[in-house]
């Protein structure tokens, strides 16, 4: 504590109960985390000093941004030093001609694109939490978003990253040009969920705004028909900028809020966004319209203007807010399956949820097979959390059995580490632990996360099932 106060301004080191409670959780359903001292460094040197002080006193450290993570990656176990980067929020440099920017990790995702307004450039990763999540958090989780279908997830947009390694040393991984020199340590670091070190400056690639954008709304009388249309679009050699599906329950929940004109009697709607140059976009609108009709679309609507386009997207982006009128709590899962298995797996999800007597809403990135079943519940209901977790586990199992993976954009954190062996063999996991050990030989950086071996975090539990004596 005294080392941390000496390294930072005293008011930027906190140990009060309120702060420790606040930083004991993130946006996941996991509760019971135990934060130690909480630090708010503002420079790379201060971050390094925090790491060195933690390790010198035999403490682990956990880095954290806005805390919007859904897999418990920032939930502290066993009172680690918490290193909170939200005050490192400067955009350091924008180089328009080379299409890159250096930012600090606490910059909010949407703030960067707002800052770039008028330059004809933007930062492509657009997670649903983009109004509050930080770019450092995006790097830690290799975050996605609707437009990652065409543009790729965060890793494709990070050129270089300055990292404080778990021994306090500062290195720059990657370079402004792109191709790695030697090992792609930048690529290995991105998505490390705070277990490989702490990003303190990030060089991001900026993407040109497309000259033409078209947003289409397609509606279907069955989820299966919508899913087949998704596969048909991809198989026809088109990669839309975004290709999202919402089921009937989502449409019914959001339509009263946004008045986007979603057909509330449809079993599923697809939002298809096409971007690029005018002739290419016009051609794809025509081809997608034809494919959709062949596959049973009831209607195909092309947004006539920017206002209509915004309303269509607003419904998609406000889906998670609209559910509050149905149930007070939700558990959002995240798995990826082969696109061709969409209809079958989504159907199975409805069955699983029914078996557990719960409510599910499906709103997801259909174009890359990234499912986001949203389980709704009221945590005050006796025994409900057990049923939610049972359904979540079964959804993960079904996704992996269909040839899919545990996570498309939320990461593993604490939430899914026990499922890692569903997807990976012991040999696969052993190799992953070698990567981690090269960055963090002593296991001090967020140790209880990602890999099932190593430190456990027995005092963390799920919402509504707090063990005796928990002070959260």
């Amino acid at each position, binding site marked *: 504590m005294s080392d941390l106060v000496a390294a930072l301004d005293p008011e930027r080191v906190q140990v009060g109960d309120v702060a420790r409670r606040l930083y004991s959780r993130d946006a996941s359903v996991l509760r019971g985390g135990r934060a130690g001292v909480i630090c708010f460094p503002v420079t790379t040197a201060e971050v390094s000093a925090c790491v060195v002080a933690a390790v010198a006193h035999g403490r682990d450290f956990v880095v954290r941004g806005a805390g919007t993570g859904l897999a418990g990656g920032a939930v502290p176990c066993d009172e680690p030093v918490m290193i909170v980067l939200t005050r490192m929020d400067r955009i350091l440099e924008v180089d328009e001609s080379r299409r890159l920017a250096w930012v600090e990790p606490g910059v909010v995702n949407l703030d960067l694109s707002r800052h770039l307004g008028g330059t004809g450039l933007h930062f492509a990763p657009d997670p649903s939490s983009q109004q509050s999540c930080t770019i450092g958090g995006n790097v830690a989780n290799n975050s996605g978003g609707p437009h990652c279908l065409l543009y790729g997830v965060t*890793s494709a947009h990070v050129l270089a990253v300055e990292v404080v390694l778990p021994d306090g040393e500062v290195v720059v991984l990657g370079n402004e040009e792109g191709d790695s020199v030697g*090992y792609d340590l930048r*690529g290995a670091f991105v998505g490390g969920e705070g277990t490989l070190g702490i990003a303190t400056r990030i060089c991001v690639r900026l993407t*040109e705004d497309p*000259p033409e954008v078209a947003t289409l709304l397609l509606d279907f009388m069955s989820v299966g028909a919508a899913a087949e249309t998704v596969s048909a679009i*991809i*198989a026809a050699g088109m*990669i839309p900028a975004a290709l999202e599906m919402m089921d009937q329950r989502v449409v019914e929940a959001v339509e009263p809020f946004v008045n986007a004109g979603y057909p509330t009697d449809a079993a599923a709607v697809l939002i298809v966004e096409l971007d690029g*140059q005018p002739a290419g976009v016009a051609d794809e609108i025509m081809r997608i319209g034809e494919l959709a009709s062949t596959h049973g679309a009831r209607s195909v609507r092309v947004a006539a203007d920017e206002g209509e386009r915004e309303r269509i997207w607003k419904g998609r982006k406000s889906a998670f807010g609209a559910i509050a009128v149905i149930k007070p709590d939700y558990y959002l899962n995240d798995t990826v399956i*082969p696109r061709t298995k969409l209809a079958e797996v989504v159907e199975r999800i409805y069955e699983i949820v029914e078996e557990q007597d719960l409510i599910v809403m499906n709103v997801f990135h259909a174009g890359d097979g990234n499912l986001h079943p949203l389980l709704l519940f009221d945590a005050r209901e006796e025994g409900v959390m057990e049923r939610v977790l049972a359904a979540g586990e079964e959804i993960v199992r079904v996704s992996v059995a269909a040839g899919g993976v545990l996570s498309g954009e939320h990461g593993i954190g604490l939430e899914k580490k026990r499922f890692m062996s569903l997807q990976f063999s012991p040999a696969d996991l052993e190799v992953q632990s070698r990567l981690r050990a090269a960055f963090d030989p002593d296991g001090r950086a967020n140790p209880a996360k990602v890999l099932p071996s190593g430190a456990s975090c027995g005092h963390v539990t799920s919402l509504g099932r707090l063990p005796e004596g928990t002070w959260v």
Partner: protein
Amino acid sequence: MTVGDGRMEAFRSEVGDSGAVCVRGGATRWGVGGGSAGAREVSAPVGIMALEPAEMTVMVGAGTTLTELAGELAVHGLEVGMDGPQGSTVGGALAVGRSALRRRRVGQIADVLLQADCVGADGVAFTAGGPTVKNVTGYDLCRLLVGSLGTLALVGRVILRTRPVPVCSVWLAGEVEPDLVLEATYRPASVLWDGARTSVLLEGHGADVDQMVETLARLGLAAAEPPVLAPGRGRWSGLLPDGGVLEVGAGVVHQPDDSGPPIVSEGVLNLAARMRASFDPSGRLNPGRDPYSRAA
């Protein structure tokens, strides 16, 4: 996860668990990072194992040539965002890790590899990554393997991301500054500059490409043959060497000779050394090669 293919088991067995070993592909860039230093040479499986147009993925033996893969994908109007000299294999191109000349359109080579079935230094088979186009499950071993010159593990079989072949594609060239070309176009696939002349590769829908060709004609660019590039490679430091051609936006200079080793900090070299030792404690995988030495 499972390595059920008999060819992968044969590959694993050939690699074994002792003695210096390396995989020989097309050997078109065999000298990159040093040579094989007399290590026992093995071959990776060859052939396309699963092509899934609706998933936009292809599973292929790492010993397959890029030409064979491109031919098979072209039947379905698809391609992968990789290139290399004639005779290059998929595994070789991934090991060298240089992004395609069309990287501005097709992306970095590191983003092409979705899953890799490998054999580690201990002779144990393992899988990195996953089969889907989107995946953040666990650590990103695939990106670490690309460009590692076979010093961390030997890759036998991969799943790659495919993409549609552009409908229309045309090279133009003219004596004009590359910045002006960039301003006048949207996402050109490649922009090259030799110090006087800019070459640009335009791709997309025919009418869009025609429109850009018209705009560029006013700047003095005309249809041209694809440029022939020197085999060497260096990093751009503000001056172009004689005979050098800059890949604008990639910081890469194609030049007659490879330049000296790039400047990397001691901290990065230490981390890299820990990584190599962690994956291959006895130093049996490609012992003669160092990814930080780009000598040809």
